[in-house]
């Protein structure tokens, strides 16, 4: 593992506590302030047979490392005829709120999902945080594994580890319903889950789908659900314009017979503005469970 802050308890919440002590500082490498070289080094190490995880405690700072991610890791297999496989896991963390503002907040999963050659994973549960990370490391392709610090308070009793083939993983129905399909990823999946529960109390039967793997996107599960419910809401923790919510709606609509939908599809995403700092603006900016519930109710008006 390589990245900034790996020898400090602060940077990655409690998700890596004492790994340096357990595995040694040769294998858990805290680094100079050099996102680009450290990410490139992880890509190079993967080409040399290692299974590196490079950690970016805030996704915003990872933008210095776009070249090794997008130009190098994502393209080496293709450019070199399938002979070089950078099996690197890039763990980038969405770290929002707390009046941190525009450069400590971005959820850029849609950017990376746009890039062929990258696998993009967004866990929303404790179990997926573990199992999809393991699957990402085992995978021979570069994986952008994006987790959200707003998910770190979740607790769960976990079953023993089952090693998954990442290419076999995709969207999962996490709540079965019949009136509406709510699709989301990452932290938005937590909102979708909570909204689904609240809607049940209001006699709306919501089916909730957690995308989990954004690229390559397997849309079949979502299509099947929307065929059943006839209504689609996508909740996304990124911005609205050209965001992942648009990709979900477009991919699903392409597969649906005309007149399947009982209502126009709805996107719930961040306003097209950088994150504000001031608390009062921040509260309005981020999506809440109530926002999701209200939007769904409106579809039944």
């Amino acid at each position: 593992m390589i990245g900034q802050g790996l020898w400090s308890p602060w940077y990655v919440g409690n998700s890596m506590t004492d790994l340096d002590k357990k595995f040694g500082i040769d294998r858990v490498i805290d680094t100079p302030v050099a996102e680009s070289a450290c990410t490139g080094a992880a890509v190079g190490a993967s080409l040399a047979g290692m299974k590196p995880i490079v950690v970016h405690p805030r996704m915003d700072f990872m933008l210095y490392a776009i070249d090794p991610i997008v130009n190098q890791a994502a393209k080496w297999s293709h450019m070199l005829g399938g002979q070089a496989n950078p099996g690197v896991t890039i763990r980038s963390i969405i770290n929002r709120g707390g009046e941190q503002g525009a450069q400590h907040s971005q959820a850029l999963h849609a950017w990376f999902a746009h890039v062929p050659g990258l696998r993009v994973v967004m866990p929303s549960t404790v179990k997926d945080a573990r199992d999809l990370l393991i699957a990402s490391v085992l995978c021979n392709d570069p994986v952008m594994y994006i987790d959200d610090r707003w998910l770190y308070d979740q607790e769960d009793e976990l079953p023993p580890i089952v090693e998954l083939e990442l290419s076999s993983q995709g969207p999962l129905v996490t709540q079965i319903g019949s009136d509406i399909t709510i699709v989301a990823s990452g932290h938005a999946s937590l909102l979708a889950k909570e909204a689904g529960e609240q809607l049940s109390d209001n006699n709306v039967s919501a089916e909730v789908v957690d995308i989990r793997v954004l690229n390559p996107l397997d849309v079949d599960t979502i299509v099947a659900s929307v065929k059943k419910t006839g209504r689609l809401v996508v909740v996304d923790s990124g911005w609205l314009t050209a965001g992942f919510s648009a990709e979900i709606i477009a991919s699903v609509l392409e597969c649906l017979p005309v007149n399947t939908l009982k209502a126009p599809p709805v996107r719930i995403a961040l306003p097209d503005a950088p994150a504000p700092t001031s608390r009062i603006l921040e509260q309005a900016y981020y999506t809440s469970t109530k926002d999701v519930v209200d939007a769904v109710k409106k579809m039944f008006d």
Partner: protein
Amino acid sequence: MKNQLGKLSNPEELHSPVVIDGYSADSLVKYLELMLTIRKTEQRLALGRKDGLIGGPVHLGAGQEAIAVGVSEHLRKTDRVFGAHRSHSHLLALNPDFYRLFAEVLGKETGFSKGMGGSMHLFDQPSGFYGSVPIVAGTVSLAVGAAMAAKLQGVDDIGVAYIGDGAAEEGVVHESLNLAKIQNAPMLFVIENNLFASHMHISLRQPSDMVARFAQANDIPYEVIDGNDVVAVSQAANRLIDDIRLGKGPRLLELVTYRWYGHVDWRDDVDVGVERSLTDINNWKARDPIVRLSTAMLESDIWCQSQIDELNQRLDDQINKAWDQAMSDPYPSPDATLKYVYSQ
């Protein structure tokens, strides 16, 4: 610009034959044959591009052959070598299979990268050549990572990155020097200083013509050498690589040279280059690493003109045959574009 390179960057200097004292005929012939192979291969590519037979850009390094040949002599197949846009010589010095290079540049599936890369994306890991890409300085940090991996893997293999003087202006090179040093990575930074980045002379881009000042800044031991003297390059590479394999950390080798062709394809680029004149090109051609070696060998009676003629003839025949073969090879199948995006 501060001139720190002195006569190394003065095209009117260093035209005399190289010093070959103590070298066996065998090793000198090996240098000469490899440099000639690279030169002739690139000349064939220049012609193919000029004739419109090659679709994509070719970045030719004619005039710079001594660098890859001198460095690669001390590399193993298990080392981790990374190149850039002008990397034909870096690959051929490890594996002089010009047929597969021709096939690759022509987009044929028999090429080094199965026809998916062309001139600018080359791969031959079995020979130690991990890959080359055209993003300037794009592989430097990858090479450092491969070097760090060697350390973790407990082997004394090394990482090598070829870096041009233009690439040395990229921020990631400085991150990489710092990271390699702080990690004590077994890493050789090879600076090919040909004084030009695309069309612009180094005097218009940097405050000094000596890139090795960045090694000084990162406390990395270095040497600055005449890059058109294959013997001197080889000796310096040997010293530095020995230290790296002994675990002494990264080293930097700056080699001063000049490319005969323009930035891309077969032209001289005197009309698009800033501070690039035909007089300079001709002076630099008088510092030809191949002529300087072969003249030294002739003067020392190590071999004679008829042997040189024979070698030229043999290489020309082999290269023409390989070119014809590559020209008639098949293109990748239509499913290749999607097939290689992921490993499965």
